[in-house]
């Protein structure tokens, strides 16, 4: 999430709202953000019903570790009309390439 935070002004420049989504609880998100020195975009909690939103997007449970009850690492760009404009699923340990996401936004913006 710090990688997104560092480039948040560029996302705003493409009229894009960033939201992080995991199955963690809100108190956990609060503590996580605090540990990062704060974030200025929201973290959403897909905790209950567990992973329901992730399921709708096909990224829950994580394909590589379905027994852990966690989301895959994945980025979707939803465009102004509410359609998926770009999507990429990453390895669990892999960092999303923020420059690649910004480039995709530039092409659709």
């Amino acid at each position: 999430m710090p990688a997104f935070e560092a480039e948040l002004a560029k996302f705003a420049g493409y009229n894009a709202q960033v939201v992080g989504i995991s199955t963690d609880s809100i108190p956990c998100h609060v503590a996580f953000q605090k540990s990062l020195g704060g974030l200025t975009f929201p973290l959403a909690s897909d905790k209950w019903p567990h992973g329901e939103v992730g399921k709708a997007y096909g990224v829950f449970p994580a394909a590589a570790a379905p027994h852990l009850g966690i989301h895959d690492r994945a980025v979707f760009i939803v465009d102004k009309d509410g359609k998926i404009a770009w999507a990429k699923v990453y390895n669990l340990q892999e960092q999303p390439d923020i420059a690649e996401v910004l480039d995709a936004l530039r092409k659709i913006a």
Partner: protein
Amino acid sequence: MVLKVGEVAPDFTLPCNIGETEGDFQLSSYRGRNVVLAFYPLDFTPV
């Protein structure tokens, strides 16, 4: 199946927070803007 480009993004509302300010995140309330959904496995893992 992972949703593909061109498909309608399923709307959702989830509890969310920025710092200690809590609220709801509703995807459809951002119609007219782009939204970057960043799914990640777990808090306190690097992203």
